[in-house]
């Protein structure tokens, strides 16, 4: 097993790639009570188009299938429920699906080995039937309805839809009412066998455990399942034009104040590590010109255009780079004008060295702070792996950012690539 000690952060990482291709990372933290485990496949809502394992022809699957599969994977062939079974070890299980990954996880303070063994077993035991698929459609329909009532959710996807014509960012992770009803047991198996192969998965364990005991448990569990390492999966993302889909949209919802979102479509780097760096740089750029330390923020506040709901964020994902700004506001038209003016004119600004250095320091502080929570530590750790880096490379990436990186992004913010999404209060009848 590989052992790496990050002295600056006082953290040890043990790692190994198993014969079947599974990547294992063990991070012991013995002053904590709990252990937090994630078993993750690099398969998320984006992966709708791919060549199934052992086949040669591309398939297209319905939106929301990765999330649906996550829900259904808990059903076991003996009619038992893996969720219940895992909880019966006294640990708290959970799972989530994002754009690019699906993760099965638990945290607990005892029976870690038993629970870990079971986690590996249940995730590697698919069981989908027509009946159970139908029942699940009911639960997911409720989840969809619940999100329909969340203004934040509506705003975010509204902007993505206006910006992206083909990229799957334009569809909710959980899919649509229409798409989830197209899911079948056959399609689930097809996706499962392709993406849940150990070669496409990562197991990360952090917390209070003995790393030697845990690695032998994992190896033993995997050795008896007969997986053989396979080649990387061929996935297809639709080609995305440079132009946006539409410049504005308005809807009505039960909100008390207009809620405005502004989005810009930017040019993502081809190289995945570079893309990650772009996100860091964009985050600093936005903070310098929109956070409470900026004159822009103070002006927006004085003009009465923003409040505590004001937020801004970079958004980065394979094949997509965007920035979002949103706020509830009584004066959406004015706020839109102001945000547009600020952001489109950034390319003409000279970036202040002192402010840039301060934002880097804040970002380094934020990195340290995030290590406090084992959940955060684990999820950030495994989420950075697909970018060809490890979590502890991030401080170095932050340090290496230059003003030129920020300027390059600033000059990519163009009025023609801007969209707005406005939620107006609906008068209750």
């Amino acid at each position, binding site marked *: 097993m590989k052992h790496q000690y990050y002295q600056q952060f006082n953290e040890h990482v043990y790692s190994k790639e198993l014969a079947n291709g599974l990547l294992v990372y063990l991070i012991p933290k013995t002053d904590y009570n709990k252990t937090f485990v994630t078993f993750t496949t690099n398969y998320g809502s984006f992966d709708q188009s791919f060549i199934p394992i052992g086949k040669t022809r591309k398939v297209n699957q319905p939106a929301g299938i990765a999330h649906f599969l996550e829900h259904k994977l808990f059903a076991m062939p003996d009619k038992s429920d893996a969720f219940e079974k895992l909880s019966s070890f006294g640990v708290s299980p959970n799972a989530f699906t994002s754009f690019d990954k699906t993760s099965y996880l638990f945290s607990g303070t005892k029976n870690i080995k038993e629970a870990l063994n079971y986690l590996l077993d249940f995730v590697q035991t698919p069981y989908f039937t027509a009946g159970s698929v139908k029942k699940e459609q009911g639960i997911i329909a409720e989840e969809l309805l619940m999100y329909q009532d969340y203004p934040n959710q509506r705003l975010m996807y509204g902007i993505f839809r206006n910006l992206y014509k083909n990229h799957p960012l334009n569809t909710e992770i959980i899919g649509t009412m229409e798409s989830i009803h197209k899911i079948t047991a056959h399609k689930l198996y097809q996706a499962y066998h392709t993406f849940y192969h150990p070669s496409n998965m990562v197991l990360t364990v952090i917390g209070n455990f003995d790393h030697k005991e845990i690695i032998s448990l994992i190896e033993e569990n995997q050795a008896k399942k007969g997986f053989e390492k396979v080649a990387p999966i061929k996935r297809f993302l639709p080609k995305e034009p440079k132009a946006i889909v539409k410049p504005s949209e308005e809807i009505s919802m039960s909100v008390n104040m207009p809620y405005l979102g502004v989005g810009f479509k930017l040019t993502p780097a081809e190289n995945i590590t570079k893309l990650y760096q772009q996100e860091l740089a964009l985050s600093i750029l936005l903070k310098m010109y929109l956070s409470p330390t900026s*004159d822009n923020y103070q002006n927006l506040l004085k003009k009465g255009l923003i409040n505590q709901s004001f937020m801004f964020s970079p958004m980065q994902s394979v094949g997509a780079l965007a920035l979002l700004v949103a706020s509830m506001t009584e004066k959406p038209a004015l706020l839109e004008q102001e945000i547009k003016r600020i952001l489109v004119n950034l390319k003409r600004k000279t970036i202040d060295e002192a402010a840039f250095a301060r934002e880097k320091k804040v970002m380094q502080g934020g990195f340290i*702070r995030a290590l406090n929570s084992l959940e955060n530590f684990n999820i950030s750790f495994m989420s950075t792996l697909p970018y060809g880096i490890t979590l502890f490379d991030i401080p170095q990436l932050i340090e290496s950012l230059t003003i030129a990186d920020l300027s390059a992004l600033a000059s990519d913010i163009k009025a023609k690539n801007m969209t707005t999404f406005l939620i107006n209060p609906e008068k209750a009848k």
Partner: protein
Amino acid sequence: MIIDKQKKFKTSYLGIKFKEEIKKEHIGFRALLPNLLKTRTKTYPTRKLLQEALDDLYGASLVAKVTKKGNLSILEFGISFINPDFTDEPLFEKVVALLQEIIYQSNVPKKDFVIEKRMLLEKIRALKNDKTRFALQRMSEEMFKNETYGLQVSGKEEDVLALSYQKVNNYYQKMLKTNSLDVVFSGDLNEEEMALLKETFQEDNNELEVIDFQNKEVLEPKTIVETDTISQSKVNLGYRLPIRANDKLYHAAVVFNTALGGGIHSRLFLNVREKHSLCYYISSQYDPFKGFMFIYSGIDKDRVDLALKVIDEQLLDLQTNKLKEAELNLSKQTLINRFKELEDAQNQSLEALYTRHLLNNKKTLEERIAKIESVTSAEVVEVANLVKKDILYILAPEDNK
């Protein structure tokens, strides 16, 4: 001083808490004050300069808020900062000085009064956008209509509209003199640092009662249905459960709540969600300061009656039959796990320590675990029989949706 001394986290937290019993006439003041005080200080006379000062401390994060704990309204000012192992210079003294300046100003900052008042009003209005939360707040208001417990410390529009700068400043001066002050700290602290804290923030030992002993006899449960332009019904049920934090049946009440709706192994989750697919979320919560419990859920508008029936059945079953041994153990293990996991989260662990301080509960983790272990299924039945439905509150979609 309430100190959680350890080195396991990479950050420390220093908090100063001002507490008093909740009073309706003070709610607006206490909602606005933390927001105002964190806009500027004598050394950092603008919002921008103050934020830069925090950023220079490796992005130290400033907390200024009001919360409700049982009978009490607690104003808290705190700073979370990176430990010296990970910074070029130690931050402790600077943090103490900054916090002292934020809390003790000669007057409340005036220039930002109008802005902060507007922002607070907009925040209160925006709360209605989160329908789950809004429906819970409405249930609480209706359930505790003539009781102190129904008051929201975050403020209502009318509380804030009535505020003037002069009134807020007067209240601020009075608050500093009359509120009881507690210092809380999580991290590693040496003798000198302790002395600096004692000297800077004068604690008093004015212990206030955190438990609300006001009871209400429920004759007939009430039903309130309101509508909104939403797509899913928010169904909340409020129950009186007259067992409080220091009562004999307290631990049994905690186990009961966990078995009923405190997690994915619970009766409500398994029956309402898994068995009948009626909802995506359903959960129950027990409040040991006031002695009540509530169930909240989001349910398809056409299936609310069935959900209510299943909920009633489960509750009735817990009142008549003992929990199965496995179920009882699972609930206990879930709780014990939560107790232990809580210690791994800096803020929550410190807050729990503070709550125990207010309740005068000196039990160690092991003692608290033993209390949970000792709960019997007969006691859980006893608790279940003290549960009395008070209110059914439904926020339903309008008909034409």
